[in-house]
């Protein structure tokens, strides 16, 4: 049993709904039509491509291909994070890539092995789908976290240096920045955990129910995945920062100017 298939014609009929937002934009002279249409086009293309390659990946179900695919996803996530900050992509790519890879794989292994109890931990259906959810959902938090640290450092560099001059170690001087960044990165997820199920049913659960799962199974998956996402986000903010220290600070503990774009 699965969800009822949607024919291509029906998909097209769904696109007709877009007339509503486009009409609204036209009426109220909001200049978003172009970006809306290009985003819809990208979404359609990317998702259809995903549909195609997922079919193959599920058919092959090869551990190495699965891990390779996971790494491609991590690369995409890293680039997305760095593009959304004003940080130098070349200098920080490796730290963020490693941090994402380590956190996702660590949490994924625990999740698939201990929580779900899979026999093949790197089974494609679980690795790609759960891994994708962990990455996608921790992306926002990671961006917020990373941005917060380096924005604050840029804004109050003199305060950071003052702490160093007062005898602080690099970690002592950086502690408040890390604390704030964890707060900013994680507070939205904490808030959404508290209201989940009241306002909306999250996508994963909806999908599972449409796919024919028992709602209780869907609920349990949703709860566990939320906790896993939260873990990935918090670990990722910390690890990204720790890894980026080498690229971002010189050996005297002073932040390198080249870490930001436009330098």
């Amino acid at each position, binding site marked *: 049993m699965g969800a009822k298939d949607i024919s291509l014609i029906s998909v097209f009929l769904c696109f007709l709904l877009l007339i509503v937002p486009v009409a609204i934009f036209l009426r109220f002279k909001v200049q978003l039509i172009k970006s809306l249409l290009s985003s819809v086009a990208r979404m359609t293309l990317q998702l259809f491509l995903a549909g195609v390659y997922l079919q193959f990946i599920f058919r092959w179900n090869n551990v190495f291909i699965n891990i390779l695919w996971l790494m491609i996803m991590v690369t995409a996530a890293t680039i997305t994070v760095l593009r959304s900050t004003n940080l130098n992509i070349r200098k920080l790519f490796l730290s963020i890539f490693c941090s994402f890879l380590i956190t996702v794989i660590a949490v994924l292994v625990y999740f698939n092995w201990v929580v779900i109890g899979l026999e093949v931990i790197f089974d494609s259906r679980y690795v790609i789908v759960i891994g994708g959810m962990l990455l996608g959902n921790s992306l926002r938090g990671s961006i917020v976290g990373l941005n917060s640290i380096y924005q604050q450092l840029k804004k*109050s560099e*003199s*305060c950071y*240096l*003052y*702490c*160093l*001059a*007062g*005898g*602080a*170690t690099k970690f*002592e001087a950086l502690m*408040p920045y890390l604390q704030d960044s964890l707060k900013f990165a994680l507070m939205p997820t904490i808030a959404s955990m508290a209201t989940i199920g009241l306002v909306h049913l999250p996508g994963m659960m909806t999908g599972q129910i449409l796919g024919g799962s028992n709602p209780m199974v869907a609920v349990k998956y949703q709860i566990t995945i939320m906790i896993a996402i939260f873990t990935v986000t918090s670990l990722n903010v910390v690890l990204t920062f720790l890894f980026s220290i080498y690229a971002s600070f*010189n*050996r*005297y*503990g*002073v932040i390198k100017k080249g870490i930001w774009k436009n330098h």
Partner: protein
Amino acid sequence: MSIFKAEQVSVNLDPKFSVLDLNLTVEEKEKILLFGKSGSGKTTILKMFLGFVIPSQGKLFFRDEEINCRNIWDLRSQVSYVSQNNNIGDIPVKEVIDRIMSFKVNRNIQYKHKLNQYLDLFEKPLEILDKEFSDLSGGEQQIINIIISLLLERKIFLLDEITSSLDVELKNKVQRYFIQQEQCTEIIVSHDQSWMEFNNIKTITVDSIWAQKIYH
């Protein structure tokens, strides 16, 4: 043994401004006034001794040992630095002080009693501790920075324009206080001539210690 020494130090800050061939020695217990116009590079000298600006050429010494990225941390724990414009942020003064004193190197200092004494000495009420640092006037911020530097109980001071926002009376008091610390080594950066009136202070005019300034 000299406390600080610079040997033929040059630094490129940006394409428009370079500092070339600085030679400077600061002996123990000496009070050195680096005097000069703003923009002449006085602050840069202090920042170089703290490892915040790395010279492109030449050598810097602290207690006859060349400064490098390993011993700089020890240097920073022996030196008290009061910076020129130091906005520590939107937190109460009390927390600013507690934070600085919570660093491992400062953790053993008993400072609560001293804090009250210094507030009294520099004519600030106890209530100032509950105000947010960023809400203080420039002069009040300066006094708080000075008090923190004294609480650290260190013997070497790098003082960057510490009296620029103070009224004459308080300025004299601060100047006299630092000049009277016989055991302390001090580098005082200022464009205020009144420091020169003290006879145990050695004045170095900053424009004269740079061999050359380059303007492209």
